[in-house]
């Protein structure tokens, strides 16, 4: 009995191996079939139903989106919109695993995932489908995020920006004068002096909140914490698609070491209440906390992030809209995108989530980010767009995160390195290790070139 049994076992193992190899072939070959579909879109009749995929956001955002869609449907009678919302943690997976025929006509995407979607042949360039007026009304910072290999794949209603939020009362009581424009940003050394003065007036002696509760070892670290520090110090994460020689440069070592030296002034903010409760005088965070922070009223001021040598820098970019690579109705999809980018739609959407508008006309008319308004600084920063990392100059402010299909490894390693440096590890060592890991992964994937 033992002999047939073991033969059965062997047969089973072979079968299992065959199944797994078949699965492997599927994962390997699922892509190439869809890889060269740039020309697979058809203009279609310009009417009928278009499918739209979006990330299930905050309730107010979803309501605003549904309102915009119903406005679109009532503004004309020919195009109907079928909206499908996905949970945010499943969204990238849903798009990546969709067969070419299942891709929607219009889809939402997060800025850093675009390059990967394009690499996987999921997106179609917008030129020709979306009107030129819509494309030229996009602010430079959002266009830079939505451009892959010189083709525009997305249009955005909103943007994102960072600032140091300050409590005017505490700053005044410490006798600290603060900058209100990007040009006058504190240098990193001045900032240390400011923290010394502020430490004397805040109750716990720790006047700064760096949003540690978001975790440096992740996207927050890369986009919004290490990113601005690196860019402002004159460094980059990648150079010519390589991290060695860029991420581990002396400039980055110096900037991030300086950043880590502020740990002794920093409240860990484990409860997320450091700034609103008055424990700290300064909070390094994004525009999205404004709805909570505005409770401070006229006591709330926005200050540019410290300048590490090459002018203050902030990250920009967020969710935007693009077209599925295989849409059979790109004319109707284009019309919908045009409508999404109209002033009224952008106003409805950004009013719901408090984000800075990403179109030029809506930004100028914004009653929060427009000239003379409370968050003018963030609006200013966004209109001074640098574009990608390699185009950074002294005067531009908003930088786009690296646009590459290898972004997942970049963000993981940069965040990990920042957290290690912040915990006291040698900066050169941490950054070199991160750079080696990134380069290894890029080399394994032929540099993520198509």
């Amino acid at each position, binding site marked *: 009995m033992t002999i047939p049994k073991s033969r059965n076992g062997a047969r089973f193992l072979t079968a299992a191996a065959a199944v797994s190899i078949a699965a*492997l*072939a599927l994962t*390997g070959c699922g*892509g190439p079939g869809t890889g060269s579909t740039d020309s697979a879109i058809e203009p279609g009749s310009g009417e009928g139903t278009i499918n739209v995929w979006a990330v299930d956001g905050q309730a107010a955002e979803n309501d605003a989106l549904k309102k915009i869609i119903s406005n679109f449907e009532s503004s004309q009678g020919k195009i109907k919109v079928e909206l499908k919302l996905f949970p945010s943690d499943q969204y990238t997976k849903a798009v990546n695993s969709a067969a070419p025929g299942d891709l929607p006509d219009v889809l939402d995407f997060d800025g850093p995932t675009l390059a990967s979607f394009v690499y996987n042949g999921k997106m179609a360039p917008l030129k020709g489908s979306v009107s030129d007026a819509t494309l030229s009304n996009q602010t430079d910072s959002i266009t830079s995020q939505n451009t892959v290999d010189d083709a525009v794949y997305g249009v955005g209603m909103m943007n994102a920006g960072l600032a140091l939020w300050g409590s005017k009362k505490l700053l005044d009581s410490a006798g600290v004068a603060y900058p209100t424009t990007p040009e006058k940003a504190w240098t990193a050394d001045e900032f240390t002096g400011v923290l010394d003065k502020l430490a004397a007036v805040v109750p*716990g002696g720790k006047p700064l909140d760096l949003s540690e509760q978001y975790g440096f*070892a992740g996207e927050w670290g890369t986009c919004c914490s290490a990113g601005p520090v690196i860019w402002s110090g004159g460094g980059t994460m990648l150079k010519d698609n390589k991290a060695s020689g860029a991420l581990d440069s002396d400039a980055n070592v110096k900037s991030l070491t300086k950043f880590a030296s502020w740990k002794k002034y920093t*409240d860990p903010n484990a409860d997320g209440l450091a700034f609103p409760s008055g424990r700290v005088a300064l909070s390094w965070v994004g525009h999205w906390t404004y709805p909570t922070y505005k409770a401070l009223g006229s006591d709330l001021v926005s200050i540019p992030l410290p300048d590490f040598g090459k002018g203050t820098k902030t990250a920009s970019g967020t969710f935007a809209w693009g077209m599925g690579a295989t849409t059979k109705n790109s004319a109707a999809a284009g019309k919908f995108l045009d409508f999404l980018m109209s002033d009224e739609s952008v106003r409805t959407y950004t009013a719901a989530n408090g984000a800075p508008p990403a179109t030029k006309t809506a930004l100028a008319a914004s009653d929060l980010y427009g000239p003379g308004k409370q968050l003018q600084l963030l609006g200013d920063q966004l209109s001074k767009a640098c574009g990608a990392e390699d185009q950074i100059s002294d005067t531009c402010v908003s930088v786009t995160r690296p646009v590459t299909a290898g972004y997942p490894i970049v963000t993981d390693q940069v965040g990990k390195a920042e957290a290690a440096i912040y915990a006291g590890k040698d900066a050169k060592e941490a950054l070199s290790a991160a750079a080696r890991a990134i380069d290894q992964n890029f080399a*394994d994937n032929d540099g993520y070139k198509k």
Partner: protein
Amino acid sequence: MTTTKTQQIQTSTKPLRRRRTASLSGQQFAGPLFASPALLGLAIFLVAPFVLALVLSFYRVQLNSPRPARFVGFEQYARLFTDPDMSAAFGQALLNNFTFALIVVPVQTVLALALAVLVNRKLRGMVIFRTFIFMPLVFPLALTAVIWRLIYSRGDEGLLNAILGLFSGGALSSHDWLGDPATAMGSIIVMSIWQSVSFQMIIVLAALQSVPTELYEAASLDRASKWAQFLNVTVPGIRNTLIFVALITTIFSFRLFDQVYLLSRSGSVDRGSTETVMTQIINTGFDNNNVGQAAAMTVIFMLIITVIAIIQRAAARQRGGV
């Protein structure tokens, strides 16, 4: 007569033979038939994924990539052991796992036994006491992790620092428990024991209550002290349960993930100091999308766990256990 007799014999043998063949075939197929759901489950959920991991570990596979998988032989394994960065990280993760297991398995088993003996006493209000001990297990880990992050928070804001500061007159008040690599793993161990000791306690408690009371009566007639009763009646009585508890605690401590992920990955602390093999595999496979490398890690890890399980079982058997 003879014909009827033979007919009778024929009619009586026919069903008999039929029954015999039926029972034979039943015996032949009943076993595999009844085992098949479990075998199918094992094949789908254990054998297939493991074979797949084994196969994947010989390829360069990137999630969300249009590039076809590339066969690279033992490259992933070679990197894991010879690449200075990767071998250091993997070694550190393994070391963290072993440190965790070496401390948690004995401490948690002994603590579970002590607590079980304690709550097994018939005192008034024991139900309430038992409930309190069992409570950490009832709350989801994601919830208790939020509280523990506040406890371990650095500076005066941290509850632990505040208490230490109060007792030491302010001398000990600003340690960064999770941020300092020296105490990061220790902090996770304490939280982990607090969270799961009650589970082991319940298992030991059930075993304690099954030890026959006559044995204690006999022992006390022999004037055995309470301590002697514990050593010579209680411990041998629940021996197999203790071995079982130690075994599952070992398994739990090698698949350590949630505590580390919730306490340190989401905070702004050095990931390397608390990384376990599990968190590293998830990180490699699903954050870096490097499935081939992650598969190689799982295969190595699986081999290590198998060796430990075999050693543990052999040790338990030698002493006449399960």
